[in-house]
């Protein structure tokens, strides 16, 4: 399996892992009454900022581990060069990702218009972001295997 495909699989699982753990921690804090995300929107801002920071650090650690394990398994230390095909695949995958995010996020405004509580927008934002990331990486794997 090419390096890029392995990297996409790692991206999917790391995204799911980080988001799941973070969501579980936030849910526990909400359930224990430490925060009230249904009315205190300031908390959402803090949560998203922390999530961005935690996500970046966790991904750096995961990529380092992935690269070390890949180097041990394949005996190839160098990361493959990014050429025009890689860029085209990333471009198409990013387009699919934006479409997925829009399809996930846009209906939330409709639901907001019919009286849905505002905090669902924040949950929908995170869920759409995660789905968009999965779509992007699955698209990359698809284009690498089937051609572009």
């Amino acid at each position, binding site marked *: 399996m090419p390096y890029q495909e392995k990297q996409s699989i790692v991206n999917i699982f790391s995204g799911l892992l980080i988001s799941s753990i973070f969501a579980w921690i936030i849910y526990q804090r909400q359930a224990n009454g430490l925060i009230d995300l249904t009315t205190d929107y300031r908390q959402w801002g803090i949560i998203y900022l922390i999530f961005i920071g935690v996500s970046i650090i966790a991904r750096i650690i995961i990529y380092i581990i992935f690269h070390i394990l890949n180097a041990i398994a394949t005996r190839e230390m160098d990361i*493959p*060069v990014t*050429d*025009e*095909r*890689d860029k085209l695949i990333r471009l198409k995958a990013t387009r699919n990702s934006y479409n997925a995010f829009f399809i996930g996020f846009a209906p939330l405004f409709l639901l907001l218009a019919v009286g849905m509580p505002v905090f669902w927008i924040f949950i929908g934002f995170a869920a759409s972001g995660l789905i968009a990331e999965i779509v992007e990486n699955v698209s990359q794997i698809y284009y690498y295997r*089937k051609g*572009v």
Partner: protein
Amino acid sequence: MVKSQIQNNIRVLRFNNTEMTQQQLADAVGVSRQTIVAIEKGNYSPSLELAFRIAHTFKTPLEDVFTYNSNPDE
């Protein structure tokens, strides 16, 4: 995925050029081996610049490397 209408003779040209490997060709033109594999299989149509670089590597005109098939059913 629709196959490209651009066909190529890269495999034959590699064989005729001291049995050049895909990796050697990839290094010569500055792309990954996977990209050369995809071009040979017809899963990827290279940019004009890359096509010229491949032709230049084989010291042959572009039309000897790539041909356009207007009827993909042939």
